[in-house]
């Protein structure tokens, strides 16, 4: 499967860069399509890996940064921080820091809740958190002058088109790669958390360290994804499940690379579909929810049938 992914991702990437109403125009490719395709790869990888981390540590097959409100809180905190840092003339740095901080706070809160409550309670809390964050976001937008709304609004919707072109785009891609490597080199301990924190500790894993790594990596993943492409949904839910399905394995360390690859492929495919298949472009979340919601429903059905 890894070999197949090595074939599929470049194919989808080339399609994303070369296809479009403007044809093969070097200027359009450089300023519009390349950053957007890179955004899909980076966003897909980060959200897929974050989803895998959350599903493993929460022991919840339905965990996803978008569904659980981690992305929502990250966007809200990013916008709040954007407004604050605008006062010092550094709004985008503020946006990134806010996204990271918001994602970390939401992830830590969910992990703490998961120690005391069951899977469905955590899920409900996450969904409520996501609604609350969404309303608060709309209210916060009122604080922004209308002429500034245009650019930032694309990012707040969740769109790979919001990914920065030029050097910043490559810096973010490099950061994503470092994050995936960090997770990879700690993934055996993360995988042990699947059996429960006490069981992992009994097996000789430094659980405190592993949990801090997970919260750090998952929130860095979601934070950077939200700061660069906004709250894109369902990749974090679907990519790990697709990876487990194709690899026939459940352990996080045995499906991590497949999850990253399938996250990128899924994001590229969804973005191509929104760009090329629909008569008018819609937010990428529309296509992802179209696939993601029934898949989540199926996972929930499988879970409910067991209890």
């Amino acid at each position: 499967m890894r070999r197949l992914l090595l074939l599929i991702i470049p194919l989808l990437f080339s399609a994303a860069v070369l296809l479009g109403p403007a044809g093969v125009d070097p200027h359009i490719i450089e300023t519009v399509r390349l950053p957007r395709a890179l955004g899909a790869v980076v966003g897909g990888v980060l959200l897929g890996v974050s989803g895998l981390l959350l599903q493993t540590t929460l022991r919840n097959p339905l965990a996803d940064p978008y569904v659980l409100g981690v992305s929502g809180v990250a966007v809200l905190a990013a916008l709040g921080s954007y407004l604050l840092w605008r006062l010092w003339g550094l709004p985008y740095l503020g946006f990134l820091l806010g996204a990271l901080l918001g994602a970390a706070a939401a992830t830590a809160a969910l992990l703490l809740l998961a120690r005391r409550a069951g899977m469905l309670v955590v899920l409900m809390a996450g969904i409520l958190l996501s609604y609350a964050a969404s309303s608060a976001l709309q209210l916060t937008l009122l604080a922004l002058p209308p002429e500034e709304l245009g650019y930032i609004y694309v990012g707040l919707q969740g769109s790979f088109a919001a990914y920065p072109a030029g050097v910043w785009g490559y810096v973010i891609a490099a950061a994503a790669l470092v994050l995936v490597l960090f997770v990879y080199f700690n993934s055996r301990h993360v995988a042990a958390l699947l059996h429960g924190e006490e069981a992992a500790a009994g097996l000789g894993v430094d659980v405190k360290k592993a949990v801090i790594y997970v919260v750090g990596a998952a929130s860095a993943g979601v934070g950077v994804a939200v700061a660069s492409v906004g709250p894109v949904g369902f990749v974090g839910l679907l990519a790990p499940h697709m990876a487990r399905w194709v690899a026939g394995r459940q352990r996080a360390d045995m499906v991590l690379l497949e999850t990253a690859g399938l996250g990128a492929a899924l994001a590229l495919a969804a973005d191509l579909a929104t760009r090329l298949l629909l008569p008018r472009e819609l937010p990428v979340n529309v296509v992802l929810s179209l696939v993601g919601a029934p898949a989540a429903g199926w996972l929930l059905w499988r879970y409910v049938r067991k209890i």
Partner: protein
Amino acid sequence: MYVRFDVVKKLGDFALEAAGELGEGLTCMVGPNGSGKTTLLKILAGLLRPDRGWVEHVGVKAKVYVGELHVPPDAAAVEVALAGRSRFSPTPVRREDVEAARRYMRLLEVEDLAERRWRTLSGGQRQRVVIAAALAAEADLLLLDEPLANLHGDWRGRVMKTLADYATGRIVVVTTHHGDVLKCCRALIALREGRVAWRGDPQQYAEPLDATCG
């Protein structure tokens, strides 16, 4: 290599006050439900901190405690056995880890189930996979909580024999309710209401353990 302890731990109304020594070989820990077996094992593993007292591990480099493991229903059996390899490195499991996991699965006669999904295994098969995981950890202090749960007559004896062989050069402690397997143990600790009621050679332990008919 040995472990010595003298600990006090209060949990609600219950108080554990136990002292003793564990040497190499297989030690069995018996006692009725609520007598403090699990609590003592967790204290010896370092998972619980005693309120007072001390635990001294001499010559013990790695200690592992295996009780209940959560397992997703779709996990393959070999993935569960691989959990035992968690302590060796933080990087993804390698071929040698898979080989070790399979080797211990073979020892417990569950290697042919390696690719079977967890939800398709019986309670006894799952239990043996979990024991394989515990052995795959290759720790010099292994604490096993109720490894004979879900196992029936014949298998109880075979698992205990496997554990006794494995315990050469290691300290292995198991808790159990089954009196019929104590012959396999080198030493025995009987707990009652949080205190060590008896310890020594299991051959001399006269008290009936499994008085199940009334």
